[in-house]
């Protein structure tokens, strides 16, 4: 907007002692405004000499002395005795003048003696003495009544939601303002009218939002120091603040002055709104400006200091109540979530599975937070997504983004309500994943849990278009004017999720700790079990070694006596007696081979290995020669063995045992093939992707069912208990142990002649 003459710009130039950049409202140095509102007279006394150095131009009207007669005089010459006496008292007090204000005294204005309220604040090297009207009819007892009624009412409010409206009502009753609003700041200091009490014919403002620029940063800082701000009459000309030559025109800091002049920009703003009088009370929560009681009146009025300080007190009571209620609500919600979190922790411990524990219980990560569109877990290279989530690669890209960007708040938790804005690939997931909450299990960001919240269209009703207007004057000054229109302006914001509340973020952090604890517990458990197993295995080996040796003695006794019986008393036995002796021998024989195998098993499990390059064919031939008379004395068996098989690196004794067990196994379970011929074939072939040479021992006979292919290598496993063939069930377990100790593999297949055992050894790769 272009104007020929901008009175506001002119005013600004007049009220500040130095040039002020007007294009940025945040830069306006409000505390250095060198004017005083017309309702009060301000005298600044040097703290040490108590001589007046600054005097407002309206002193004649208010205390009956022109400012020139006050300047550079000692307070005794200016102020009544009641005041100077109290100033001496206040200077000696630790809490200064807070409990003394207001000090009442009569001033002689013209011919009248007028009762005034004097309010004193210390601000740096100066005492700010403000003199303003005192309402005689407001008695001390009446404040007390009003105050205790207001406090009682506020403290009776149990419902959090009612607190605001009820408080506004109470304040309006006490102050008789046209409009009383509870104005709350969001995290960006945009304001919203969350409750109001207003006169009958007034347009409601409740629900309206005001941009953060309406109350700029330095104004908010002033509210933290000086919590009540009265603008008694927006159209009255303020009084200039004169300064003594002694202070060389240095501006007086008016932060603590209650009658500090008003920025012309703000006055313009109020006049656009039609407000003549405004009274604001800061609500401070945990050291931050939570909001304001904003009181508007459409005609001038003066509010006695006592009522203003009472309102400040009501503001404190209110914020105390607020923090109590929000702490209660926080505690309640945290309690509920804690229960859910503990249940999840228990579930993890119970199921011994992180994924099941997090998702299968009544309480789970899918219902831990409300309004979740989906969740995803990444843990130890496993990824699971639940409900609606973006695809994994995009989530991973997001994780990398968070990792690279670094998380200023904390490394472990990341939250965002509009992730698409900072991370473009998520822009088109706005519907299902506008908000994200991520907890990282470990500092390297590899394991995480991620929750998504859908984007919601939020309707924001602004009290007028939020943008400010640039006003350019003919003389070239440019300034931002306050908003001119306060007509409702509805804006729809897309792509934002419901906010992640503090209690939700805290719950996520606690959940992370719960998960880590459960994992640690599980890890410790597994480690313990492992160690117990190791120990048990060692014990078992020692035990089986000892036992099998000790078992041999009684076995020899049974065998020996049976033989002696047969030899020496054989002629006294009949055929049945001899048959029994044969059966005893068979039993002993079986027991003996059992012991041999167990011993062998414990032997291959422990002890050193002597690796050497060995010819498999040579050892196999030896073994076959040894075994054939035992297993196939009466059977015709065709034996084929590939010549020039590759050598293997192995412990000779173990390799021999391995071949012995596999070949004896083949001979034991051999049955004639399709052409009624029994055959054994030993050879080598390539195996696997890397064409590793493997050896095989194949025999004619029925193939081993697939379901047993793995279990046959377990100890004491035999395919059929009714099997006619003898066996201890330890033989293949020994084979597998030998193969394992040689970093190899053994497996069964049903090719070549029928049943084929394959193995390779690779001890050199250990």
């Amino acid at each position, binding site marked *: 907007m272009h104007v020929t003459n901008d009175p506001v710009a002119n005013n600004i130039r007049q009220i500040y002692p130095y040039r002020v950049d007007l294009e940025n409202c945040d830069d306006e140095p409000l505390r250095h405004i060198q004017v005083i509102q017309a309702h009060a007279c301000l005298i600044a006394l040097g703290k040490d000499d108590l001589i007046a150095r600054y005097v407002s131009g309206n002193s004649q009207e208010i205390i009956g002395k022109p400012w020139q007669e006050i300047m550079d005089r000692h307070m005794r010459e200016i102020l009544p005795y009641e005041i100077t006496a109290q100033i001496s008292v206040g200077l000696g007090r630790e809490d200064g003048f807070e409990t003394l204000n207001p000090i009442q005294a009569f001033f002689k204005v013209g011919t009248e003696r007028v009762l005034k309220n004097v309010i004193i604040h210390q601000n740096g090297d100066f005492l700010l003495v403000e003199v303003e009207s005192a309402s005689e009819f407001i008695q001390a007892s009446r404040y007390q009544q009003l105050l205790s009624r207001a406090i009682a009412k506020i403290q009776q409010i149990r419902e959090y939601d009612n607190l605001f409206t009820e408080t506004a009502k109470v304040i309006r009753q006490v102050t008789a303002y046209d409009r009383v609003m509870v104005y709350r700041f969001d995290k960006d200091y945009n304001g919203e009218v969350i409750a109001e009490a207003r006169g009958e014919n007034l347009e409601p403002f409740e629900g309206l939002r005001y941009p953060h620029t309406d109350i700029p940063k330095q104004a908010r800082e002033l509210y933290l120091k000086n919590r009540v701000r009265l603008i008694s009459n927006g159209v009255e000309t303020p009084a200039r603040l004169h300064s003594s030559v002694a202070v060389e025109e240095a501006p007086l800091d008016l932060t603590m002055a209650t009658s500090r002049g008003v920025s012309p920009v703000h006055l313009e703003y109020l006049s656009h709104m039609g407000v003549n009088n405004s009274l604001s009370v800061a609500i401070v929560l945990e050291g931050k400006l939570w909001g304001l009681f904003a009181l508007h009146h459409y005609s001038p009025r003066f509010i006695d200091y006592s009522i203003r300080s009472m309102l400040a007190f009501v503001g404190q009571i209110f914020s105390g109540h607020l923090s109590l209620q929000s702490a209660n609500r926080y505690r309640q919600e945290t309690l509920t979530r804690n229960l859910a979190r503990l249940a999840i922790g228990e579930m993890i411990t119970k199921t011994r599975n992180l994924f099941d524990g997090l998702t299968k219980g009544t309480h789970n990560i899918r219902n831990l937070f409300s309004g979740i569109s989906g969740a995803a877990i990444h843990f130890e290279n496993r990824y699971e997504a639940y409900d609606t989530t973006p695809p994994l690669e995009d989530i991973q890209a997001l994780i990398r983004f968070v990792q690279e960007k670094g998380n200023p708040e904390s490394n472990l938790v990341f939250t965002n309500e509009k992730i698409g804005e900072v991370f473009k690939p998520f822009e088109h997931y706005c519907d299902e994943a506008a908000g994200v909450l991520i907890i990282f299990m470990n500092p390297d960001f590899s394991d995480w849990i991620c929750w998504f919240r859908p984007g919601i269209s939020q309707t924001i009703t602004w009290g007028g278009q939020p943008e400010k207007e640039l006003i350019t004057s003919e003389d070239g000054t440019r300034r931002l004017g306050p908003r001119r229109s306060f007509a409702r302006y509805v804006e729809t914001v897309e792509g934002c999720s419901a906010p992640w509340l503090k209690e939700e973020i805290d719950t996520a952090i606690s959940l992370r700790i719960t998960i880590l604890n459960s994992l640690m517990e599980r890890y410790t458990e597994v480690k313990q079990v492992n160690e117990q197993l190791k120990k048990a295995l060692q014990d078992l080996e020692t035990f089986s070694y000892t036992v099998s*040796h000790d078992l*041999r003695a009684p076995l*020899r006794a049974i*065998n*020996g006596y049976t*033989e*002696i019986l047969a030899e020496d008393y054989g002629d006294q036995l009949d055929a049945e007696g001899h048959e029994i002796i044969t059966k005893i021998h068979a039993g002993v024989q079986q027991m003996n081979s059992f012991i041999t195998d167990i011993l062998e098993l414990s032997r291959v499990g422990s002890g050193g290995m002597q690796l050497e390059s060995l010819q498999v064919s040579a050892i196999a031939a030896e073994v076959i020669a040894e075994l054939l008379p035992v297993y196939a004395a009466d059977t015709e068996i065709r034996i084929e063995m590939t010549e020039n098989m590759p050598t293997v690196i192995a412990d000779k*004794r173990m390799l021999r045992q391995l071949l012995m067990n596999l070949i004896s196994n083949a001979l034991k379970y051999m049955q004639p093939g399709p052409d009624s011929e029994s055959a054994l074939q030993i050879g080598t072939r390539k195996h696997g992707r890397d064409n590793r040479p493997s050896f095989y021992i194949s025999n004619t006979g029925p193939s081993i069912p697939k379901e047993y292919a793995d279990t046959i290598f377990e100890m004491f496993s035999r395919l059929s208990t009714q099997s006619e063939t003898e066996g201890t069930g330890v033989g293949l377990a020994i084979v597998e142990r030998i193969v394992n100790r040689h970093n190899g593999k053994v497996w069964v297949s049903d090719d070549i002649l029928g049943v084929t055992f394959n193995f390779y050894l690779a001890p050199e790769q250990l």
Partner: protein
Amino acid sequence: MYANQILLAEDDSTDAEFFQRALRRLDSPPELVWCKNGLEALEGLSDVTNSKLLPRLAILDIKMPGMSGLELLAKLKSDERTKNLPVIIMSSSDEPQDIAMAYDYGANGYLVKPNRFQDLRELVNSINSFWIKTNRLRPMVM
């Protein structure tokens, strides 16, 4: 001079009995002196070293209470009067390290106890015909 005796140190009475029975089946069996452990055997031998003749052969089990076969073996082989006495270790263990250790201690032979009585008979037979007969020809150094 040797007595026609075999010393057997064996804590298991059944094994001792089998050995005795197997021995008796020989044509002209030597006398068996059975000691239940190494200590008993050492005492018996110290008697004979002073006044009597040494046995032709000592057969020692390894695992015995009090003094083990290997301990006894070491003592015998370190004593001038008994170091030429042929000693055979007879054990149920076929562990290579047991066998190696026996020879390290100076054993003249190592036999694994057969499971079958028949095998024991054959073994005793060959012990008799080899160790006892051949040793008869050797000059005795005291």
